[in-house]
Each structure stands twice: as structure tokens, then as C-alpha cells.
């Protein structure tokens, strides 16, 4: 979330410099909020600056000097040049992108379908609603263990498949490099579709009913109503939902780490898993700081783009 906070902060500072009026009230307001502004600035700027500082050194907790003396280990941007040549980093980034490009659209489409279903009344709606929201409330680590059990070669998934096919199925889900990634993505979709569903349902319920009726009376069929009324009205909320999931999914870690530990080999090693391993196993913190900064830049670009789109669509309020 640090990327988001950073951009929000930028926005705030922007607005402030623009709106400081020569008027006494505004100046008083500025002085009153100054302590809070400084605190926020410190909280978000200090770690960033510290990270930047360490990322140009070979510092690690075991190097025997305090981090403030890390300049003694200055390595003239070697971390960044290493990073550019680090194939393990690039393939982790690529894998993270693949997971995101599969999971987020799948969660979006499933969530939208479910939200459309739940926008109307049907018997037992409240019970199904509660059941549907449950995955979101499961602790990711627990979900990880659950899917770890489910995808064992003698586990329930293979058991059900065997019954369906009629012959025993013994797929090694978590030890096959390709299938492991699929299993991990299924777990992510299971856990996060409900969030998408919840946000999109809120948007869907907000679509004015009589505009829908008016469209029907003018001869629009269900699909036309969906594309010409529902989607345009939900644009802002869809962008928010997608931005939240893109940023969160990029950081996918806990469920995945418990299911596969990034393996077999590096088959499910995403950026977060890679950073975790470099931090805890290799203990080269200067390098970790460089990676983290690179990722922050990527996520900031996503966040800024989403906010620009939102500002644009707010000019045409729903």
C-alpha cells in the first residue's frame, strides 16, 4: 500500500500548494494541520529515503555497522546493475504478471456475474450471500493450508476428478511446475472473488432502477441495457475494484508460500517470494531495497494511472 499512500500524499501536497489562499483562515488551517502533515510526511518519506540510501550500499544486518553508517559500504549502484541482469528477478516479475493477468480478470468476471445474480431477489439469497463472503474472511495462511491439503495427489481434488472420470486420477498438482502455478491461481481466485463481488454489487445496486426501466421501454434488451447503462454507470467503481486487486495481487505471498514455498524449484516464485528469500536466506538487504524500490515504481505507475482514469470518469458522474 505504500505506493498508494505516496500518490495520495503527492495529491495532497499538490492541492495544498495550489489552494493556499492569502486569506487568514487558510493560513490558520495550514498551521493547525502542520504537525499532522509533518508526521504523515515523516512516516511515508523516512522509510522511502532510508530504502533509497541502503539500496546503493552492500549493507546487511550482519555487516557489523549500523544502517546509518551504510555509506561505508557504498557500491556505486551495483545493486541496480545486478538487478537489471538478474534473470531470477525478471522471471519472478514475469510470473507475477502472469498470475495477475489471469487472476484479476477471472475474479472480476466471476465477481461481476455473481453481483448481477445477487442484484435481483431469489429464495435463499441471504444464506448464499453469507456463504459467498466466507472465503474473504479466512486467514490467508489457513487458506494456504486448506488448498495444500486439497491439491495433494491423494487429496479431495483428485478424488472428485477420479469419480467424475471413472478411473483413478493421480495428478501431482503441487509438484508439477505448470500445474502448481494453476493451483496457486485457483486459490487466489477462490479467496478474492468475494471482494470483487462485494464492491461490484455495491456499484450495481447504485444503478438507478428507473433508468433501467426507461431503457427497457425504449426497446433495449438485457445485453444492451448492460453495456449502455450498467457498465458506464459503474465505471468508477470498476476502476477502483481493479486497482485494489491489481496492487494486492502483485504482492501475492502468504497463501502461495504455504502451498508451494515458491516451488517446485522456482516455478511459483513471485516477486514477493523472491524478495522474502533474498531477505531471509541471502541476507543482502541492500539488494532487497533496490528490488523493493523498483517494484514501488511499477505499482506507483499503476496507481497513478488508475487515479487519472478515475478523475476523468468523475467528470461524467454516474
Amino acid at each position, binding site marked *: 500500500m505504500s505506493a498508494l499512500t505516496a500518490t495520495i500524499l503527492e495529491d495532497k501536497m499538490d492541492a495544498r500548494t495550489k489552494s493556499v489562499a492569502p486569506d487568514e483562515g487558510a493560513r490558520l488551517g495550514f498551521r493547525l494541520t502542520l504537525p499532522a502533515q509533518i508526521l504523515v510526511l515523516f512516516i511515508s518519506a523516512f522509510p522511502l529515503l532510508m530504502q533509497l540510501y541502503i539500496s546503493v550500499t552492500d549493507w546487511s544486518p550482519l555487516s557489523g555497522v549500523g544502517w546509518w553508517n551504510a555509506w561505508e559500504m557504498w557500491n556505486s549502484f551495483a545493486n541496480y546493475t545486478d538487478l537489471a541482469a538478474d534473470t531470477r528477478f525478471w522471471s519472478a516479475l514475469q510470473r507475477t504478471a502472469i498470475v495477475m493477468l489471469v487472476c484479476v480478470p477471472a475474479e472480476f468476471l466471476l465477481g461481476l456475474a455473481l453481483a448481477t445474480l445477487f442484484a435481483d431477489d431469489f429464495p435463499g439469497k441471504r444464506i448464499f450471500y453469507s456463504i459467498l463472503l466466507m472465503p474473504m474472511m479466512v486467514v490467508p495462511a489457513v487458506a494456504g493450508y486448506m488448498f495444500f491439503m486439497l491439491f495433494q495427489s491423494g487429496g479431495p481434488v483428485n478424488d472428485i476428478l477420479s469419480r467424475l472420470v471413472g478411473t483413478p486420477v493421480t495428478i501431482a498438482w503441487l509438484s508439477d511446475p505448470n500445474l502448481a502455478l494453476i493451483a496457486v491461481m485457483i486459490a487466489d481466485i477462490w479467496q478474492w472473488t468475494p471482494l470483487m463481488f462485494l464492491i461490484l454489487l455495491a456499484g450495481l445496486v447504485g444503478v438507478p432502477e428507473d433508468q433501467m426501466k*426507461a431503457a427497457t*421501454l*425504449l426497446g*433495449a434488451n438485457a445485453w444492451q441495457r448492460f453495456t449502455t447503462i450498467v457498465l458506464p*454507470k459503474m465505471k468508477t467503481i470498476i476502476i477502483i475494484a481493479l486497482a485494489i486487486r491489481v496492487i494486492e495481487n502483485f504482492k501475492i505471498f502468504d497463501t502461495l508460500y504455504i502451498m508451494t514455498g515458491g516451488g517446485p524449484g522456482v516455478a511459483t516464485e513471485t516477486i514477493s517470494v523472491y524478495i522474502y528469500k533474498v531477505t531471509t536466506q541471502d541476507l543482502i538487504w541492500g539488494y532487497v531495497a533496490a528490488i523493493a524500490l523498483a517494484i514501488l515504481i511499477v505499482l506507483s505507475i499503476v496507481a497513478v494511472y488508475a487515479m487519472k482514469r478515475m478523475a476523468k470518469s468523475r467528470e461524467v*458522474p454516474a
Partner: protein
Amino acid sequence: MSAIHLQNLVKKFGDFAALKTMDLEIADGEFMALLGPSGCGKSTTMNMIAGMEEPTSGKILFGERDMAGVPMGRRGVGFVFQNYAIFTHMTVRQNLAYGPKMRGTAKAEIDRRVGAIAEMLQLSPLLDRKADRLSVNILQRVAIGRSAIMEPAIFLLDEPLSNVDAAFRAVMRTELKQLQRQFRQTMVYVTHDQLEAMTMADRIAVMDHGVLQQVGTPLEVYNNPANVFVARFIGAPGMNLLKGRPAQSDRGLVIDLGPLGVTPPLSDDLASAVRAVRGDVLYGFRPEQVTLAERGLSMPVSFVERIGARTIVHLGEGESAVKAVFENDVGLSVRQTAVVAPPASSVRVFDADTGLAVRAG
């Protein structure tokens, strides 16, 4: 072709009968107002005509065609919603073009029709404005135009003026009436405002508690209300109704109003009809038709409202309260006693038990 026939129409929501029974014939090209207080079933009736709700029983015919099971998109009705339901994320042009576009009309044809309708409704300079920044009278015209572009044979309007302030309402009443003259469609107009119904409609259908009370031209409904509800509902203030018992006097048939004394004699036609009534009757007359007289009902003045063009005088109190409306001003003040008499020709009598009008033979 575009006449509407409602036959034995009933609508129930669970145990609640929103519409108990309704038979109504609306002629081709007629402007019919459905008038009644909230909860009288007028909007339910309208929604069933539009196809938003299915009747529990009974039939809706457009001309010869039975509308049962015809979905609302295929009924060919134009509908103007109470809040206009303009697509706020589109421009005026996109709103107007919506219907033809959904039906796959050719681009050039859409442009031509949008141009024509915009010209007619004076929307041409506003075509590329976003619809969420328009004033309410323009929204109304867009709502009408959006339906009218489909050239529906039937136009339904659901209280289109209820969100508008009073001064504007007068302007829009005239505008709507002129539009109906231009389009020459069958129009059904739902309202709880009798002024709108009286000024615009060819005929008014007065409803209450899911029952049709009376259908007639504005003047018929005003002059000859079919029952006590219509008498009280139409007119501002409504008709005065005093309970009494018919009695024979040497000057003719009068109504004995108890402590208020007796009324002036009824007209001969009315008298013969009233003689047939057993039990109490309600003696009714319009506040506007009251005149001060030598002989008549003598009542204390309890309140005087002067509103410029008219003065409303409240007489008596409780069960026997009466209102009298005079032009400009009248020399009466509180605690004076006024002697009022309605002209015999304007007196209406209702059966106190059934509430129905006693009509002169």
C-alpha cells in the same frame, strides 16, 4: 388503433388489492388524466398499461390487441417518469437517439429523426450538452423527446410535474398541452394535482382506494360529482356537505339540517329524486357558488383567508363547517354572522348511506 381498453382489471400485491376493479375506455387521441390521492391505484394502473406489472386478472387491450404477456419493450408506449429517468451519463443527443439505436436504425435515419425532434422541442442548441447539467424543464423535454422519437401510439406520463416548483408548473402545463396537440397521441397522465388534471385533460378518471370513482370531462366531474369522495376531492376547497333529513315545507322540499335550520327549497327536479331516498342525505354546494342572502343558512364566521383574487370565509365549525369563496373581498369578519344561500340550481344532494349522488330525474 391506439385506443386503450381496460376490462375488469385487478391488481393484488399479496393480500393487498392495489386495484380492486377497473373498467375504463380511453379513446384514440384522448388526453386522459388518472387523478386521485396517493395509494389510490393510479400509478399501478399506469404501470400495468406500460407492462411494468402484470395484472392479477382482467384484460388490457390496445385497440383490438390483447396486451397480456407482451413485454414492456414491445408495447410501443412512451413513458415519462416522475423524475424523468434521463440517462445522466449521456448527452442530450445520445438520450434522444437511444431508442432508435437500440432497434438498429440506420445512422443517417437516427440523425434525421433526432434533428427533427430536437427542432420541435427546441433542444437543438443543447444537443451536445451532458444530461446531468440540465434544468428540470429541459429534462422534461428530453424525456418527452426520447419517447416521442419512437412515435409511440400511446404516451404515459407519471406525475411529470410533481418535482417542479409552483411557478414553473404553470408554464409546463401549457407546454405539455401544446405538445399533446402536436403529437396527437393517446395520452394517459397520472397526477394527484387536480389543477393539472382539470387544465390539461379531455377527460378525468377519479380514483380512490383502488376503485374508479367517476370518469368525465373536467366540468362534468366538477359540476356533477358522482359521489361524496369526488365532491370533496375536486375543487379547492372541495364541495361543502351538510348532513340533514329531507322535509316538506310550504315552499317545497327542503333539507332539515338540525341546529342550522332548514335549507332553501330544492329545485323541483331534484326534489322528486330526493323524495325517493330513505334516511339521511348530504346537502352539497360549491364554496364558489355561495352568495350572501336575506334568507338562508345563518352561520358564524370563524376564519377569513384573503388571498387577493379571492377571499375564503370559514363558517361554523365541526360537522357543520362550511367554506364560502368570494371574489376579491367581502365585508365579513370573524365572529360576525353570515347568512349564506347557494342558488337552487347549484345544489347537489348525496345519499348519506351510500355516498352516491342523488341525480335529478
